[in-house]
């Protein structure tokens, strides 16, 4: 729009190289990690991903990986659950583990002066977790309580059903947390088998940011991961072919406002059009105060507080997904407006101003996604896992800058097709 904007975009993309700041550290036994060494704040942040994720849960028994990850900090080595947690607190160590459809994840944060204890505790959790019967039952009960609570949360109900419909017959159909039926069935042997199956170096990605040097890190990588098998034998996950389009599911639920999910097949993270799709999605429903959906659904008509869309690039079945919540009486109206916006974007593409605004936003806001150690480590570990390259952060803005109106129109067409989609509505909707 105005001159200062163009200058800023150019300036940001010419900023100093991220690749130069990333050291590729390899330990004596061959464990690899990226390191961004920075002593400004004496903290060390570690982010790790293990590919495979809950899609490796045994068939018909979702929730195994999630339960395993929930148990890693419930006692390990010489420490029972309470002693382990007390030791983390004694040294102010933050440690957490997670599971989603494609990844197991680990997060560690420590004051620099406690790094030895922090890595030692991480090693215990990953290699010597007790997985004792009382802890298994305790964490199982917590997961069950969470699942029961979510089973009557209209937004979660809509989300779950959307994935169940979108991925019918595929491992992705179920939540990584498992179900009220599957979680009680999980045995200790299932957990041990999952640990042996997934905890290998082949699909491990690690990023460390903060006050530690390469030599120290290499030593600690060996201590924690050195004994892991080099090769993995993941079960192949079928690539999902397509999400049902033109399907609408209504779950009757007695609430004044309906929760809605909509979407269809998206683009893979490694698809050459992915970055253009990110721009197109931003135009549709990505911006907080500026997307088409925000303007049409919220600002002009007051139909909803929240309305959004995002790309969900699952490894074996990428989606685009959107959501909103609107009072029952106006569900039909809201869905028609959303469908019309999607169709218009697919048919006519964005206009020049929308494209420029979105490109400028995505370029300019890049630095905001990297301004804490945790954010930087979190971004880098996904870049590493997707093999986008150490220089990806340096190339990203230039890739956005060259996107033309024709590119955006073509990718909008590819993404949204004829505008047909799957939608799930939980509530007492009217006007459908």
């Amino acid at each position, binding site marked *: *729009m105005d001159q*200062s*904007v163009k200058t800023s*975009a150019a*300036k*940001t993309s010419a900023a100093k190289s991220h690749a130069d700041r990333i050291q590729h550290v390899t330990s004596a036994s061959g464990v690899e990690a990226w390191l961004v*060494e920075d002593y*400004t704040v*004496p*903290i060390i942040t570690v982010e790790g991903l293990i590919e495979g994720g809950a899609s490796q849960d045994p068939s018909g028994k979702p929730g195994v990986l999630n339960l395993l990850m929930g148990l890693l900090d419930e006692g390990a080595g010489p420490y029972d*659950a309470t002693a382990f*947690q*007390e030791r*983390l*607190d*004694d040294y*102010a160590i*933050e440690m957490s583990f997670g599971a989603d459809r494609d990844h197991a994840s680990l997060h560690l944060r420590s*004051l620099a002066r406690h790094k030895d204890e922090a890595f030692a505790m991480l090693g215990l959790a990953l290699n010597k977790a007790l997985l004792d019967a009382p802890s298994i*039952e*305790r964490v199982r*009960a917590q997961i*069950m*309580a*969470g699942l*029961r*609570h979510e*089973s*009557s949360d*209209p937004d979660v109900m809509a989300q779950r059903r959307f994935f169940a419909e979108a991925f019918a017959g595929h491992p992705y159909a179920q939540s990584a947390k498992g179900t009220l039926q599957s979680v009680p069935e999980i045995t200790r042997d299932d957990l041990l088998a999952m640990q042996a199956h997934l905890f290998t170096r082949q699909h491990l990605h690690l990023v460390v940011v903060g006050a*530690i*040097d390469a030599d120290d890190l290499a030593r600690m990588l060996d201590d924690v991961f050195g004994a892991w098998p080099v090769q993995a034998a993941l079960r192949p996950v079928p690539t999902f072919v397509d999400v049902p389009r033109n399907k609408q599911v209504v779950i009757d639920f*007695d*609430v*004044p*406002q309906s*929760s809605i999910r909509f979407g269809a097949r998206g683009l893979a993270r490694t698809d050459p059009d992915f970055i253009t799709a990110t721009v197109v999605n931003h135009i549709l429903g990505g911006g907080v*105060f*500026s997307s088409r959906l925000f303007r049409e659904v*919220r*600002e*002009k008509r*007051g*139909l*909803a*507080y*929240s309305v959004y869309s995002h790309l969900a690039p699952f490894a074996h079945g990428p989606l685009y997904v959107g959501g909103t*919540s*609107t*009072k029952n009486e106006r569900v039909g109206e809201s869905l028609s407006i959303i469908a019309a916006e999607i169709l218009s974007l697919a048919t006519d593409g964005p206009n020049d101003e929308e494209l420029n*605004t*979105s490109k*400028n*936003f995505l370029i*300019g806001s*890049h*630095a*905001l996604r990297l*301004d804490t150690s*945790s954010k930087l480590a979190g971004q880098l570990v996904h870049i590493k896992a997707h093999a986008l390259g150490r220089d990806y952060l340096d190339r990203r803005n230039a890739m956005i800058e060259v996107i033309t109106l024709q590119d955006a129109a073509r990718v909008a067409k590819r993404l949204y097709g004829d505008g047909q989609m799957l939608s799930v509505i939980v509530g007492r909707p009217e006007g459908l």
Partner: protein
Amino acid sequence: MSGVDHDPLSFGAPVSHHVLENGLEVVIIPDHRSPVATHMVWYRNGSADDPQGQSGIAHFLEHLMFKGTEKHPQGAFSDLVTELGGEENAFTSMDYTAYYQRVAKEHLGRMMELESDRMQGLVLEDAVVLPERDVVLEERRMRTDSDPAAQLGESLAAALFAHHPYGTPIIGWMHEIEGLGREEALAYYRRFYTPDNAILVVAGDVEVEEVLALAQQTYGQIKASGHKPVRKRPQEPVLRGQKRITLADAKVEQPSWQRSYLVPSLRTAEKGVSEAIEVLMQVLAGGQSGYLHRKLVVEQQKAVAVGGWYHATTCDQTRLLVYAVPSEGVSLEAIEKAMEDTLADFAREGLDDKTLTRAKTRLIADAFYAQDSQTAMARMFGSALAIGAQVQEVLDWPAAIDAVTAEQVLAALKWLDHSKSVSGFLLKDEAA
């Protein structure tokens, strides 16, 4: 290179505080790791300052502040932030309302120009006010009216604060939001949106002199109102008697129990008392190493989850809450009894040095970790000043926590006075 540890009890960043002639307070927190600036303006008015019968107006006005001024009509500010790749949002609490943008540092001046413009220049017309009121009603339906746990939460707060406005939800009561309009919003705006009622916080890759010069050119041009709002809220009387509220709803799949107590805040407490309550809550409910978790979840297995929180940073008397999610087959009455017994056990057993030190280490580390995030730092100082604290008190907080003794922690138990508490029972309505 080796890491240099900062004094664990002090902040690394040199935080500075200034006051402009018109009364605007300015806090500057340099952080040069990333070329980004966080710009926040805090107003010393929140939902507890809503005029009688107009609950929700502080929050409604927060929404309306995005509707444009004479100089920058609706959408212009947000469009600019988007163009520049910035992030923006706003939030309303019981005691304050705040607006922020995060941008590349070279755009800080523009943000200050537009934010200072909307401190006095807001233009409101029915055409934008009425749809926005619908948005707020949808927000309320989304957050509260579809969620029995949130509905019980409102009833409990209203019972605990029978007289003080903290008993009214920030978003307001449905029937009062429906009555809010343009006139009410403008009257409220003129009363509170003045430089002498505001605090400017800038964090990030900035120099103090530069920020002060920009502040002078923008906010400095606004005249002081000359009648700085004085907060005089009706204070809570001493109400004897336990209150118990039961909400049974067909949608509740996971029952839970909670209890709230009226306690002093950082602002109302005698020296050291708020810090002692903070340490007490860390000892009792600090995650998986907390006393309640160890006794009720690990040892007795009566609950799958327990916890609690203390909201220290409020202007007036505040709230402390403990909760429990019972194990299957354990009634809410049984878990309530077990919680009371466990608290009594704790009072009898006292507190050893190791436990005390562990709790303090964790609390102090949390404040230290906040330094990794310029937004977290800006929020920490902004919220403190907005409730009437000084910069030095925030800086001294870790040392004040460190000074808490075991005797003070045990003395703080007196605030958990069951005879004046409010208990909540959330359960499934089996008849429905």
